Structures are given as C-alpha cells and as structure tokens.
C-alpha cells in the first residue's frame, strides 16, 4: 500500500472501514429500491427516523440490539480462540426453549429467584448446543461451520415440534387455531421494566456481559489460554495449554451467550410467550447471524461490539420502517441484510491490514499493548504445509 497516512489517520480509517462497508451495502440497496420503483431518499430518511428519530424509536433500537450484543459477545469469545460459530441461531432457539420449559414447569417463586433461574436455563440450553459442535471439533475434528449449520436446522425443527405439540398453549387447542406458541409464561419470570412500558433489563445484562467478556479475555488465565489458542494452536500446545478442551470451551461459552439471548428474547417479549412461525428465523429474527456482523463491526472486541450492536439494531429497526414507508415486500430486508453481511466481511481484511501496519510501527516504538485479531489468525500465521502436528494435528479454523 503506497498511500502514506499518519498512524492516527490510518487507525481512524481502519475503524471506519466496517461502517463504510455498511454504507456501500445501503448504496446497493438504493439501486434495488429504485428498480422496485421506490424513492431511495425517502426510504433511507424513513429508515433513519424509524431507528433513531424518537424516544420510542431509540427504545426499539436498543431492544433489537440486545440479542445482537449477547450473540456478538459470544462470537468474539469464539473468534479469539479461532473458532467460527455459525450456530448462534440454533443456540438462541435452545436457550429460548430451555428457559421456557423452566418457566412452565417450575413452581411459582419470587422473581428474585425465578428470573435468574430461567435465564440460567437459557444459558444451559445454549451452552449445550455450543458444546456439541465444540466437542465434535476438538475431539473428532468435525468442521464447526458445517456442524453448527446442521444443528441450527435441528434446533428449528425441534422448536416447531415442541411449540406445536407438547408446549403449545392449551387455549390454542381449544380454539382450534393452533398457533405455535406457548401459554403466557409465569409473570414472576417477566424481566423487570426499567423505563416506559417496554425497556427491560435485558440491554443492561448484555452490556454487563460485554464488560465481563473483556475482563475474561484480558484479565484471566482462561482468557489468556483462549487467545493463545486463537493466535497459534501450535505454540499454545507447546506451552502446555490444553488446546482441545479450550476449543470445546470456547464454543460452549459462545453458545451460552446465544442461549442467554434466546431467554431474554422470550422473557423480555411483550407477549411473554415463546412464539415461532415455523420459519428458520421466525424466533430469532436472524440475530444469530447478525450478531456475527455486529461483532465484526465492533472489530471483534467485546466493548466495541456494544456501539456496533446499537448501530446494527438501528439498521434492522430502520429497515422495517423503510419497508412500511415505501411499501416494498419485507423480503427486501432479508436481501439487504445479506448484502450488509457480505460487504462487512469482505471489508474486514482491509481493516486488519491497516491496523497491522499501525501495530508494526507501534511495536517498533514500544508503545502498543493491544493486538489485532483477524478471523483465522492462526491459519494465516503458519504457512500451509507446515502444520503437521503429528497425531494431534487438526487444522485451525474452517476445516475438519
């Protein structure tokens, strides 16, 4: 790269790259809107107002951002260990199901006991759905991208089965409407409302989780192990770190965060039920995938993922406002969402490249303590063909 930038400007550019990528995707979306015969200026104005234009809009955005932040924090933890978790969709579903079952089957208790219990159940459900691919990757060398996608499919079918059958609201059977949803769950498990009539404590919990993840990753021995495995599996093994257990744990923790997102989605919902429309993203609203984008937008740093999730939540809430305002099918939002994912991921390497140069100089000056993590850091570190770890061999991120 021959353009010369001061380290400060280069860093600024690096941090703005993901945001620029979002704008590029929206530009593409503007062309689509034009082709659909809608006015993109009007559409995007509505989008902005719908996301950030009023108190209600801000609350909607914060609530939409909450599952993204939970999932995003989990994604960051997994990525730091060089594990790609595409399974947050399924882990959210399991978290929702476990917490719902806890609320349905536990006796009535005081909220102070009930709320932590149902949230814990959600964490357990998600952790289980993360542990399976984690264990399969660590001990059986099964590619986690494929196993998590398959587990997403299993989770969605399991949810459809449970909500149509064993967990269905008895009133739905009486009425014969058979909407796949549970009865109104125990009121003692409702998440406390902080402000107005919708803003519950979920967002606060999510921010606490982000701070906790930061502390975990940079201030505890476990966090050190996770990052060491992510940066170089070979070196980590040489240093005596139990690589396999750490990898399995990374996916389990990642799943736990997604499970918590699912539980918060259920008990923070206005209907206080678990509902599905039978589609693949009916319950999660795609948060399991979008949380990955939020994490990337936040530069795979737990604290930066907080504002990134807020922005991305705004994008989703605003997208719905746009769709209502210019009267285009909601499928447009799914397509636009896909474009945002592609653009942000494709731009990520440039962010990393810019920061890498920066760190190089900073390291020479001896002033930098941070580190830049790209997805697949360990893979890039070792030249192909040299990763023969004998019996213990398994390739880093994406494969087997």
């Amino acid at each position, binding site marked *: 790269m021959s353009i010369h930038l001061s380290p400060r400007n280069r860093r600024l550019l690096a941090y703005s790259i993901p945001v620029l990528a979002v704008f590029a995707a929206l530009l593409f979306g503007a062309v689509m809107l034009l082709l*659909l015969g809608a006015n993109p200026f009007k559409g995007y104005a509505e989008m902005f107002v719908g996301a950030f234009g009023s108190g209600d809009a801000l609350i909607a955005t914060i609530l939409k951002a909450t599952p993204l932040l939970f999932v995003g924090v989990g994604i960051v933890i997994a990525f730091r260990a060089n594990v*790609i978790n*595409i399974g947050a969709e399924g882990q959210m579903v399991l978290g929702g199901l476990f917490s719902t079952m806890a609320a349905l089957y536990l006796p009535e208790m005081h909220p102070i006991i009930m709320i932590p219990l149902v949230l814990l159940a959600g964490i357990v459900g998600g952790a289980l759905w993360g542990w399976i691919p984690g264990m*399969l990757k660590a001990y*059986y*060398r*099964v*590619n986690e*991208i*494929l*196993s998590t*996608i*398959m*587990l997403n*499919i*299993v989770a969605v*079918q*399991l949810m*459809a*089965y449970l909500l*149509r*059958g064993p967990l269905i609201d008895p009133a739905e059977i009486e009425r014969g409407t058979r909407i796949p949803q549970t009865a109104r769950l125990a009121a003692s498990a409702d998440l406390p409302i902080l402000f107005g009539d919708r803003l519950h404590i979920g967002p606060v919990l999510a921010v606490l989780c982000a701070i906790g993840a930061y502390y975990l990753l940079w201030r505890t021995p476990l966090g050190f192990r996770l990052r060491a495995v992510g940066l170089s599996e070979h070196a980590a093994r040489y240093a005596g770190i139990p690589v396999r257990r750490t990898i399995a744990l990374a996916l389990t923790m990642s799943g736990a965060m997604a499970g918590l997102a699912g539980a918060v989605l259920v008990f923070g919902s206005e209907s206080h039920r678990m509902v599905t429309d039978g*589609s*693949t993203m009916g319950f999660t609203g*795609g948060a399991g*995938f979008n949380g*990955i984008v939020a994490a*990337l937008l936040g530069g795979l740093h737990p604290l930066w993922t907080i504002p990134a999730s807020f922005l991305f939540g705004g994008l989703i809430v605003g997208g719905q406002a746009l769709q209502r305002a210019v009267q*285009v*099918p909601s*499928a*447009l*939002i*799914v*397509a*636009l*969402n*896909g*474009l945002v*994912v*592609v*653009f942000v*991921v*494709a*731009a*990520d*390497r440039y962010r990393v490249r810019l920061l890498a140069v920066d760190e190089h100089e900073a390291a020479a000056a001896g002033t930098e303590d941070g580190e830049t993590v790209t*997805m*697949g850091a360990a*893979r*890039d570190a070792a*030249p*192909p*063909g040299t*990763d023969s770890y004998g019996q213990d061999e398994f*390739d880093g*991120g*994406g*494969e*087997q």
Partner: protein
Amino acid sequence: MSDIFTTAVMVAVVASAIRLAVPLLLASLGETFGQRSGVLNLGVDGIMLLGAFTGYYTVLKSGNVWMGLLAGAIVGLILGLASAVIAVTLQAEQGISGIGIYLFGLGMSDLLFQKLVGTPIPIDTFPAIHIPVLSEIPYIGEMFFQHSLVIYLAFAAIPVATFVINRTTFGMKIRAVGEYPDAADTLGVSVSGVRYATEIIGGTLAGIAGAVLALTLGIFQQNLTNGAGFIAVALVYFGAWRPTGIMLGALLFGFVNALVLELKTLEIIPRDLSNLAAMAPAIITILALVFVARRFRAPSALTKPFTRGK
C-alpha cells in the same frame, strides 16, 4: 394384497429418491470443484434459490423447460463470479460471507417472486423419457428408466467430474491450488485464476441445481430449497471430496427424504411428528461428518485465502 402394496410403495420411493437426489448431486459436484481448489462456498443455498426462481419464471413466461434450465445456469454463473470476487479477490472469511450470500438469495428470490408472480402458478415440468426395453422391466424399469433427461444427464456428470479432477491438466491445477497454493504459484499456475474458474463452475451448477428443483416440482415458493444447499455443502465432506462418494451421499439423502415424504403421505408418521422426521437429514449429516473426519482429510488450503509470498 398388502405385500404388493409395499413393493409398489418401495418402487415409488426409490424412483422419487433418485429424482430428489439430483439437485443435491449437481450442487455438490459444483461445490467439490471449489473445495478441491481451496474455496468453501457456503452460499450455495442462496444461489440455488435464485436459480430456482429464475428457472421457474423463465418457464412461466416461455413455456420452455430448457430455457428455464439455461436461465438458472446463467444466474448461477453470475453469482459464482460474485462469490469468487468476495472469497478470492477480497479474501473475505468464507464461513460468514457465504451466510451473507445465502441471506441475499433467500430474500431476493422471495422478493422477485412476490413482485413478478405473486400467487404460485404451476408450470411445465421436465417430460419423462421411457428408455426403450429397459423401462419395460418390472419394478426396475419404473425405478431407474422412466426419468426425465436431466436426471440421466446429472448422473452422467459424475464420471465427467471425476475425469476432469483426476485426469486433466485443469484438474491437476485445481488440486495443486487446493493443497499447496505456494508451490502451484511458483510453477506459474494462477491461484486466483483457478479459483475463479472453480467458483464459476460451482455457481453455475448450483444455479442449475436450483432450476432443476423448481422444474421437477413445477412450482416456486419462499425458501423452496429448505436448506438443501447447506446439505449439498456438507455432502462434499460426506463424499470425501470425490464425485462417486458424493453421489452415494446424494442418493442416501434422496432416499431419506423420499421415505419421510412417503411415510407422511401414508400417515405412518403422524403430522405431529413430521418436524422430528425433518431433522433426520441434519442429524445424519452430523454423524456422517464424524465418520468422515476420522478417515479423510480436507484439501489443506480449504478456506485459506492466498497471498503471494506470505
């Protein structure tokens, strides 16, 4: 009486298994080229959906199924090219960019369907060809020799793919680039060029696979593939990156799907449990992945972007 009934059912299940296997087979064969050259395209399902819609729409307007197939192929080719730009030139993380391509295809195909068609209108499907003499054999004829031309062509593509990958210069370049791109680069093989070619082959076959699906069913609807593209990606692992292995996997999945469909129609599986039955392909895939991962090794450079001199 019930004996005859069972035999007839089994014959129908096998025949339908072969038909259901074909979209998976085509998409998987395409994905094999990409993976052997080191690129994982997770967006196959999205490409299939857009190929399916384009194929459906073309047939709806032109009434010609072969035009529909061609239209699906062209859309697949364009999306394959786009996937190559994203994965090879921009070096995006392939596990995630593929999800983006999938979401784009899922939304876009649904959007186009709602805008251009609205209510589902059935279209012509591929005409079945009864192969002389062979199709007259009791049972066997109905199972294997009364399919449409695309079905036979799809199975004929398997030895062709094997030949191209194992016996041609192009195939050797694909394998070299997938196993040890630095060495291939040193010898003057364009790593990016080969990967662009394989991604375009993969995209085109995924587009064709989608069109075949829509033109076999004679309809289009939102999320028509229902995750078949992801199964197709997993099938490449399942088949240990070899076309014949992939064929066996595709047939197995075709059989499971056909069996589940039949059991549902006969109400042997009650409607309440149909969701549990729908988990079968995904669970089988996970178990198969465990089995395969212990015995076979993925191409060394799979999902690793190539940068010269790194």
